[in-house]
C-alpha cells in the first residue's frame, strides 16, 4: 500500500492534535471529519483507535465534524470514510502511541521496548506505571507526514472482528441524539413556508402579512418582523420580561418563517399562514423529466478514458469492425428521491457576533463558507457542527434547512432556533436523483467474445452541493438564498470531469475489452438534481450488467462463464463465484413456477469494493408484480475493519436499490414535484423485504476499499436479469412496476 493511501486524510490534515486528545479522566477523544450518516463510521473508528492505542473501546469518544476543531475532511461521500478517515486515524493513533510511549520511557526510566500498554496504562518492568491521561496532558505538537508501523494484524482485537455499533442503542431507545431532538436552553422553533412551485414569488403585501401573523393567535399575541425596524418588542416579551411565547413572523423577500417558543405552535401557525399567502410566477417544464427526452437535450459531451472525463471531443461512433454480430440496447432510470425518513432539520444560534449552526450536513466545511456568503458574514464568525440526523443517502435538504435556520437566527438573534422541514418540503424541494439513459453497443466475435464496446450515457447533473462561489458573486447552491429580497442565483452544475464522477461513475466497464468508446452526455434537469447514493453508477451498472446478460445470451454462453471469461482480475472473478456459490447456483429449485435468478457484478468506481449480487424474483404474470424474494451478496472490500458494519451497508444498499428498481419514480408537473407524500411515492415495505445472505471475502493484508454504495448497481441488474430468466421479458427501463412488466409480458405473446 502506498504512503498516500496509508495516510488517508492525514494528507489534508497532518496536525496530530486535531485527531487525538487525551482527557484527564482517561477518556481518549478521537476526532473525525466524517459524519455518522448511519453507515456506522463511528464504530469503525473506535475499533481502529482501540487497537492502535491499546485501550478498551469504552474509553474512546468519537467527535464528529465541526469546523475549527475536527480535522477537515471536506465531505462525507463517495464511500470514502473508511479509506480516508479510518486509515488516517489508524496512523494518527500509531503516532500518538509512539509519542506517548517515548514520554513514558523518559518518565519511568525504562526503554520503550520494555514497556507494555494495558487499557491506556503504560507499565515498566519494575511495576512503575503512567496513564495516557498523564502522558497526554501536553499536546502532541506533531505533524504526521510519514506512515509508521501499526499494530500487526494478529494483535488486532477489534478491527477486523467488530464491536457492537457504538451509537445504536441510544438511538433505538429514543434518546435525544439527533439534531431534530437538540433542545438547547432558550430554544425556539421555526418553520419556513416554501413557495407553491419553483421560482414563484410571494405577492402578499407586508401589511397583509402583518395582519395574517397577528391572527395566528390565540393563545399568544403575535408579532411580525416584516421590517427589522418594525419589531414590536411588547409582543415578544411578557410584562415580567420573560418570553411570552408569541408567534413571530420573519420575512425576507419570498422567504417567510413562523417562529414560536413551542414546536407545536410553529407547526400549527405555519400551516394556517400557508393557506393565506399569495404567490405568482414560477413553474417548470415537466416534459424534461422523461428519460426518453434526454438525448435530444444534450448540452455537452465528453469522452471518458480510464474512468475520467478528458478534454478531447468524443471519437466517432464505433464501427465494430470484425464483429460477427453487434448487439444494441438502451436502458433508463427516472428521477428519484433520496427520501429520508426524517425530514431535514437544523438548529442555529447567533450569539453576539458568532453564528453556530448544528446540522446533519455531509459537508460542514463546505457549508460554512456557503452560509457565510449568503449571510454576508465572515466565515470565521460561522461555526458549523455536525449532529447525527436521519439517513440522507446523498445531497438532500440538510444544507438547505441549515440556511433556513441561519436566516431566522440572524433575523432574531440571541436565542437558538430549530427548523425542521415538512414531509411535503422534503419530497418537493430536496435535490432529486437525476434521470439517466444509457445506450450500449457491443460486437461479438465467432467465439462469443466481446470485440468492441460503446457506452453513451445521458445524464442530468449529479453535483449541486453548496460550495463557496467567492465574495460578491451572489451565486449560491442553498435553496432559500434564491428567494430572498436580494436573491442569489442558482449556480450552474459542477463540472463533471473527475475520475468516475457524476454521470460517468462506473460508465467505463470493468471488463477486459479490446476496443471501447465511452461518452458522457450532459443534460439539464427540470428541477434541481444532485448526488444520490452511488450517483451515476446505479444506472451505468444496471445498464452494463443487464447488457452483459444479453450478450451472454447472444453468444450462447451462460451469465457466469461469460463474465468470468471477460474479467482478468482474479478478485473480481472470485466475488462472482462466491455469490453464485452462496446462492447454490443461478437456477432456482422448483418446477414450472420456479422463480427467476439473476446475477450482476461491479467494482465500485473500478477501484473500490467488488460486489456481486444474485437476486431471486417471483413474477406474478397476471398482475405484473415483481417480488424480490431473496438476494445473496458477495463482496471483497479488501481489509474488513467492521465486518457487521460492512455487511449492514451492503445489505441496506441492496434493499434500497430494490426499492428504486421495483417501485420508485419521481413525477413532475408544471408546479414541480407531484408525489409529495409516501402514498404517491411508495417505497419498499417490510412485507416486501427480501431474505438476504452475505459473504465477505476478507483480505486483511490488502487495503480497505470503500463499499457503502457498491451494492446498488448490481442489485438493479440482478433483479432485471432474474425477471428475464423467470419470464423471458427483458425490461430495460426502471422502475419494474407492474404495469410495465405486464406490458412486457403481453408483448412476448
Amino acid at each position: 500500500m502506498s504512503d498516500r493511501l496509508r495516510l488517508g486524510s492525514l494528507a489534508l490534515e497532518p496536525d496530530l492534535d486535531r485527531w487525538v486528545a487525551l482527557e484527564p479522566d482517561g477518556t481518549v477523544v478521537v476526532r473525525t471529519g466524517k459524519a455518522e450518516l448511519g453507515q456506522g463510521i463511528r464504530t469503525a473508528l473506535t475499533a481502529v483507535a482501540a487497537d492502535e492505542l491499546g485501550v478498551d473501546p469504552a474509553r474512546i469518544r468519537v467527535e464528529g465534524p465541526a469546523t475549527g476543531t475536527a480535522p477537515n475532511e471536506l465531505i462525507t461521500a463517495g464511500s470514502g470514510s473508511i479509506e480516508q478517515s479510518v486509515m488516517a486515524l489508524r496512523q494518527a493513533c500509531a503516532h500518538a502511541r509512539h509519542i506517548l510511549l517515548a514520554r513514558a520511557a523518559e518518565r519511568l526510566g525504562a526503554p520503550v521496548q520494555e514497556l507494555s500498554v494495558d487499557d491506556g496504562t503504560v507499565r515498566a518492568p519494575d511495576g512503575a506505571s503512567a496513564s495516557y491521561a498523564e502522558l497526554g496532558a501536553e499536546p502532541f505538537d506533531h505533524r504526521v507526514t510519514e506512515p509508521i508501523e501499526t499494530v500487526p494484524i494478529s494483535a488486532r482485537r477489534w478491527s477486523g472482528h467488530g464491536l457492537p455499533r457504538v451509537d445504536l442503542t441510544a438511538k433505538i431507545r429514543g434518546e435525544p441524539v439527533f439534531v431534530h431532538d437538540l433542545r438547547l436552553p432558550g430554544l425556539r422553533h421555526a418553520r419556513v413556508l416554501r413557495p407553491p412551485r419553483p421560482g414563484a414569488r410571494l405577492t402578499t403585501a407586508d401589511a397583509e402579512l402583518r395582519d395574517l401573523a397577528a391572527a395566528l393567535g390565540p393563545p399568544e399575541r403575535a408579532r411580525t418582523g416584516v421590517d427589522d425596524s418594525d419589531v414590536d418588542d411588547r409582543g415578544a416579551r411578557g410584562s415580567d420580561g420573560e418570553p411570552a411565547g408569541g408567534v413571530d413572523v420573519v420575512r425576507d423577500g419570498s422567504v417567510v418563517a413562523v417562529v414560536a417558543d413551542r414546536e407545536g405552535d410553529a407547526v400549527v401557525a405555519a400551516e394556517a399562514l400557508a393557506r393565506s399567502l399569495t404567490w405568482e410566477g414560477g413553474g417548470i417544464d415537466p416534459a424534461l423529466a422523461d428519460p426518453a427526452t434526454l438525448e435530444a437535450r444534450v448540452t455537452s459531451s465528453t469522452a471518458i478514458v480510464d474512468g475520467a472525463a478528458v478534454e478531447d471531443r468524443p471519437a466517432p461512433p464505433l464501427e465494430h469492425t470484425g464483429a460477427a454480430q453487434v448487439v444494441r440496447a438502451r436502458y433508463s432510470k427516472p428521477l428519484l428521491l433520496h427520501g429520508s425518513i426524517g425530514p431535514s432539520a437544523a438548529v442555529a444560534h447567533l450569539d453576539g457576533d458568532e453564528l453556530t449552526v448544528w446540522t446533519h450536513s455531509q459537508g460542514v466545511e463546505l457549508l460554512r463558507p456557503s452560509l457565510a456568503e449568503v449571510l454576508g458574514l465572515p466565515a470565521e464568525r460561522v461555526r458549523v457542527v455536525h449532529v447525527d440526523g436521519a439517513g440522507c443517502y446523498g445531497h438532500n435538504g440538510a444544507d438547505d434547512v441549515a440556511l433556513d435556520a441561519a436566516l431566522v437566527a440572524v433575523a432574531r438573534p440571541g436565542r437558538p432556533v430549530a427548523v425542521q422541514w415538512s414531509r411535503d418540503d422534503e419530497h418537493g424541494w430536496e435535490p432529486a436523483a437525476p434521470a439517466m439513459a444509457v445506450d450500449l453497443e457491443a460486437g461479438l466475435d465467432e467465439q462469443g467474445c466481446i470485440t468492441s464496446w460503446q457506452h453513451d450515457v445521458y445524464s442530468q447533473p449529479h453535483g449541486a452541493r453548496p460550495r463557496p462561489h467567492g465574495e460578491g458573486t451572489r451565486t449560491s447552491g442553498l435553496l432559500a438564498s434564491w428567494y430572498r429580497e436580494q436573491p442569489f442565483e442558482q449556480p450552474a452544475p459542477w463540472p463533471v470531469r473527475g475520475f468516475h464522477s457524476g454521470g460517468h461513475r462506473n460508465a467505463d466497464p470493468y471488463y477486459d475489452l479490446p476496443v471501447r468508446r465511452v461518452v458522457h452526455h450532459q443534460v439539464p434537469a427540470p428541477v434541481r438534481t444532485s448526488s444520490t447514493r452511488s450517483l451515476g453508477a446505479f444506472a451505468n451498472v444496471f445498464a452494463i450488467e443487464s447488457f452483459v446478460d444479453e450478450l451472454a445470451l447472444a453468444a450462447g454462453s451462460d451469465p457466469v462463464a461469460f463474465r468470468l471469461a471477460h474479467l482478468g482480475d482474479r478478485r473480481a472473478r472470485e466475488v462472482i463465484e462466491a455469490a453464485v456459490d452462496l446462492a447454490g447456483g443461478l437456477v432456482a429449485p422448483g418446477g414450472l413456477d420456479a422463480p427467476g435468478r439473476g446475477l450482476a457484478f461491479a467494482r465500485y468506481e473500478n477501484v473500490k469494493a467488488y460486489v456481486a449480487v444474485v437476486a431471486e424474483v417471483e413474477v406474478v404474470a397476471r398482475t405484473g408484480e415483481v417480488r424480490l424474494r431473496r438476494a445473496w451478496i458477495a463482496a471483497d472490500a479488501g481489509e474488513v475493519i467492521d465486518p457487521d458494519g460492512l455487511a449492514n451497508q451492503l445489505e441496506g444498499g441492496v434493499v434500497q436499490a430494490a426499492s428504486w428498481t421495483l417501485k420508485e419514480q419521481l413525477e413532475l408537473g408544471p408546479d414541480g414535484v407531484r408525489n409529495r407524500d409516501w402514498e404517491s411515492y411508495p417505497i419498499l415495505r417490510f412485507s416486501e423485504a427480501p431474505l438476504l445472505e452475505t459473504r465477505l471475502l476478507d483480505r486483511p493484508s490488502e487495503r480497505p476499499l470503500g463499499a457503502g454504495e457498491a451494492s446498488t448497481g448490481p442489485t438493479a441488474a440482478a433483479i432485471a436479469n432474474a425477471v428475464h430468466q423467470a419470464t423471458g421479458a427483458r425490461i430495460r427501463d426502471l422502475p419494474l412496476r407492474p404495469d410495465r412488466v405486464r406490458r412486457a409480458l403481453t408483448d412476448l405473446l
Partner: protein
Amino acid sequence: MGLPLEVNGATREVPARPDTPLLWALRDLGLTAAKYGCGADRCGSCRVLVGDAPVASCQVALGDVTAPVSTLEALVDTPEGERVVTALAGINAGQCAYCLPGIAVTLIHLARRTSPPDEEELLRALDAHLCRCGSQPRILRAARQALGGGRQ
C-alpha cells in the same frame, strides 16, 4: 392554563391548543423519542401508545386524547422494552435508526400480548413503518427473536 395530559404515569400541563397534534405536544414536553416523519400516518416514526393502542401521534389532536399516553421513554424500561431493544441492538438492526423508536413501540406493543403474533400479523404491524436504510430484513429478524413467534 393549558390542557392536562396523562403521559408516562404523570399528569402534565400542556400549554397548547386542543387541535395541536399530540406528537408536537409530546416533543414540547421534551419527549422526543416520537419523531416527525410524514404527518400523515404513513411512516410510523411518531408511534406512541394511547391506552393500549399503538397510534400515530401526528394524527391525534391533543384535545381528543382520552386515555393515558405511553411513549418510548417509559416503555423501554419495561421487560418487553428491554427485550425489544436488546434484540434490535444485538444484531445491529438499523443504520441511521431514525425509524427505530417508532418500530420499537410497535414491537413492545406486540410483545405485551399474551400470544405471540404470527408472521402475517408481524408483517402487517411493521408495514405501518418505513425504513429507508434498508434494514427491514434485520429488523424482522430481531422482531422474531424478541417476540418468539413467526418465522425464524
